[in-house]
């Protein structure tokens, strides 16, 4: 990655987009200290997370501020039962038992997986595993949640469910979200910001609606939601005033059409 100059505010919902290998994962790993502590290589510049310089604090400290969820659910669950896995990080951090119990209960409740508590991690579906993985990170009470393509191994239905939960984490629990994803269709209506990365550089950064209206992002390997493509075509043929703004979801498009009727 080169020439990255970025500031993300509390409570933002940031989507990182770009083709595979463009540097999304690398950028995410800068926020919890895996870069520079876990990876070899050269790091020039400075990353600060919640006021902490990532060079001076090890990943286990930074992870309590910026928790990370990975792509493959099987590679991030370590215990044999759901409850034990959600408690795992807290146990490593030597939290007192009562507090672990309280936080595990809370994390399971937020993710809506209380009924999985005593299940074995081996018998869960992919979507359930990913929810457990998020719960075990949430138990550390991070301010920021970093998600690296969390739905890539899930079927569309489980992916939608997971993304809905992630959205509610941002809206209800005010957790800052940074998510690298290809399924933009479900995310963009709720995202406050999209950052498009190409070849290790940030090429576009801004409000998703404005970015999609102004720029052609397809060459960067970004999958534009189908409804946006439809509207772009309509705009070329119809009177521009009929579609005053670009809808990001089907619901928003229906809203525009409803206004036509009212007029």
């Amino acid at each position, binding site marked *: 990655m080169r020439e990255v100059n970025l500031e993300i505010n509390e409570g933002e919902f940031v989507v990182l987009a770009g083709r595979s290998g463009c540097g999304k994962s690398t950028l995410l790993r800068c926020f*919890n200290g895996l870069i520079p502590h*876990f990876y070899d290589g050269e790091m020039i510049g400075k990353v600060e997370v919640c006021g902490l310089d990532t060079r001076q604090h090890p990943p*286990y400290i930074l992870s309590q501020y910026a928790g990370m969820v990975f792509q493959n659910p099987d590679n*991030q*669950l370590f*215990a044999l039962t759901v409850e034990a896995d959600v408690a795992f990080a807290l146990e490593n951090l*030597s939290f007192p038992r009562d507090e672990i119990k309280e936080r595990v209960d809370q994390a399971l409740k937020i993710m809506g997986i209380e009924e999985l508590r005593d299940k074995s991690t081996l018998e869960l579906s992919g979507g359930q595993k990913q929810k457990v993985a998020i719960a*075990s990170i949430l138990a550390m009470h991070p301010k920021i949640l970093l998600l690296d393509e969390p739905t890539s191994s899930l079927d569309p239905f489980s992916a939608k469910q997971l993304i809905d939960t992630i959205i509610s984490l941002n809206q209800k629990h005010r957790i800052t979200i940074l998510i690298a994803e290809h399924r933009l269709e479900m995310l963009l209506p709720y995202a406050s910001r999209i950052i498009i990365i190409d070849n290790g550089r940030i090429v576009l950064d801004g409000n998703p609606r404005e970015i999609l209206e102004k720029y052609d992002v397809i060459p960067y390997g970004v999958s534009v939601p189908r409804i946006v493509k439809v509207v772009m075509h309509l705009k070329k043929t119809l009177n521009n005033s009929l579609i005053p703004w670009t809808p990001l979801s089907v619901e928003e498009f229906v809203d525009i059409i409803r206004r036509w009727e009212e007029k």
Partner: protein
Amino acid sequence: MSTILRGLQFYPGKTIIHKLDPRVKLVISLLLMATAALYLEVTIITMVIVVEALLSIVAKVFSRWARTVYGAAPLIILVFIANFLFKLSMPGQSLSFQSIYESLQLAYRLVAFLASFSIFFLTTTPEELGMALTKMKVPYMYTFAFISAIRFTPILAEELQSIVDAQRSRGLELEKGNIITRLRRYIPILVPLMVNVLRRSYELAEAIEVKCFGAKKNRTYLRELKMTTKDWITLSASITLFTVAIYIRYFSRISIP
């Protein structure tokens, strides 16, 4: 591959046996084995096996218990043959009823051993085993290694199966040829498996870092084993019975049929 998965599956149960402290269960299993080691008499070994069978019935795992014991039949037969041949090879021994009977006794004792282990593992989850290890002051590194082995074996088994399928669909034949050519044919399976395992271990290392593994020296635990009155009673009862067994064997003159 499904057999490996089935072997590692654990069935949480709610019987008295399941609820016993795993350490107590381990002691009982060891004592049963020790009893079987003290005696060679068929009557006593039968009594031990009957006790084990009763325990498995109480724990509602009788059919699975019987299946594991039955599954060990080839091993038992092997032990019998090995003993028998060993006895024959000794100087001054001839093929007699006595030597067959003695070999049978040894093989029969093995049944009692295996059956005792089987009950322990059928009624104890790996999680509980891990907790027991922690309580026995085993360093967490080792407990974690044990739990990870159980956690990741089925995943690796699945991966192995998919590599076998992928290579077979590319024309790899595993069943043809003599032993050496067959072994050589496993190379295209083992190489991708190793590569995948290495890649996975890197991802695991990342994930465990993020979950603060090894952050603090004194790790805490959400769940901890506690000995209840019931556990103490069971423990002392079984130790008493075992003492009786030792007494009868070494100090009394009761002859055993």
